[in-house]
């Protein structure tokens, strides 16, 4: 396992794909996952995939990813869907502290075959 996983562009058939991240240092603040949108199938109304990013305590985030072409504010095709989850913070003494998370899991559920390059990194 590693702090950064880079998977070059590939065609993903429907199914579930998992990567694990660890080797965090005390400066780790978040996990960021980027998925390039290379002629994704369907339309923006279709949930063609789901990305889940969880810390080892079970907290984190999950997002449905749209098919087709998503536009930016400038009206240009969005090049990549990007998700980010911060290290949780909890009450500590009179203040707050980052949780001591040891690892994270990235799960990519593909519903319609699509092409993407994936970068997952603990930053």
């Amino acid at each position, binding site marked *: 396992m590693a702090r950064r996983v880079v998977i070059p562009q590939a065609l993903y058939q429907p199914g579930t794909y998992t990567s694990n991240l660890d080797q965090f240092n005390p400066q780790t603040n978040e996990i960021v996952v980027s998925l390039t949108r290379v002629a994704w199938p369907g339309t923006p109304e279709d949930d063609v995939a789901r990305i889940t990013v969880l810390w080892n305590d079970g907290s984190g985030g999950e997002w449905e*990813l749209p098919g087709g072409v998503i536009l930016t504010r400038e009206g240009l095709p969005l090049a990549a869907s990007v998700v980010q989850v911060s290290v949780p913070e909890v009450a500590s003494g009179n203040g707050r502290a980052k949780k001591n998370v040891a690892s994270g899991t990235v799960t990519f559920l593909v519903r319609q075959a699509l092409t993407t390059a994936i970068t997952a990194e603990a930053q």
Partner: protein
Amino acid sequence: MAVAFVQTVNNSGLGVNSHNIVVNAVAAGNFLGLCTTVWTGGGGPSNVTPTSSPTNTWNTTTAPTQLNGASCFICYAMNAASGNTTITVDYGTGFYIRASATEFSGVSTSAAIDQQAANNGSSTAPTSGTTGTTVQANELVMAVLCVNSSETNCGIDPATTGYTNLFTNQNSAEANGHSSDYKIVSATGTQSAAWGTLTVTQDWIAKIATFKEAGAAAATSLPLRRAFPMSIMMQ
């Protein structure tokens, strides 16, 4: 029981169709506050009611007027169920979102919402607007700011004065600029938030809401008792 911060989980999604945020080990009876900043290409996001598993009753506050497809929202659940909690919000198709989900203890388990205000503008000085006077001294104040621009560094300062920052992201070019903040107050009064001076003029939308601490009874007037004169008989 005094209001106290328990935990916060923050995340973002760029080009997504729904957004879940998972909070670990929520304690039964606690309060969950969700601050979101959203941009959609479909004319601006509507105020949506989150759902969650386990089931909690989610409430929205009055949505600010959206500005060029962007807005921000404060939603909340009182008397939450215990356990790992997945909170879902869905603003439509291909939206850009940043969110903080925060657990507090000591907030009223019913009718918690007290005062709120909202504001928007295009300038370098975002502010939330000013609420009405809170009805009780001990309350939780939550504020959220959305900056909508193509700036990679918006220049947001955490909210002032007396606030603790929950989540800040300066990159509006990637989703939106976001700041969510809170403070716990111990005196009645109006509430507002400001976020410093942005790098350049940008669109911004802000929201503030206050929530009552649990267990504070409203002041009541004691019945007026007539004092009877006393005379002491000395014998």
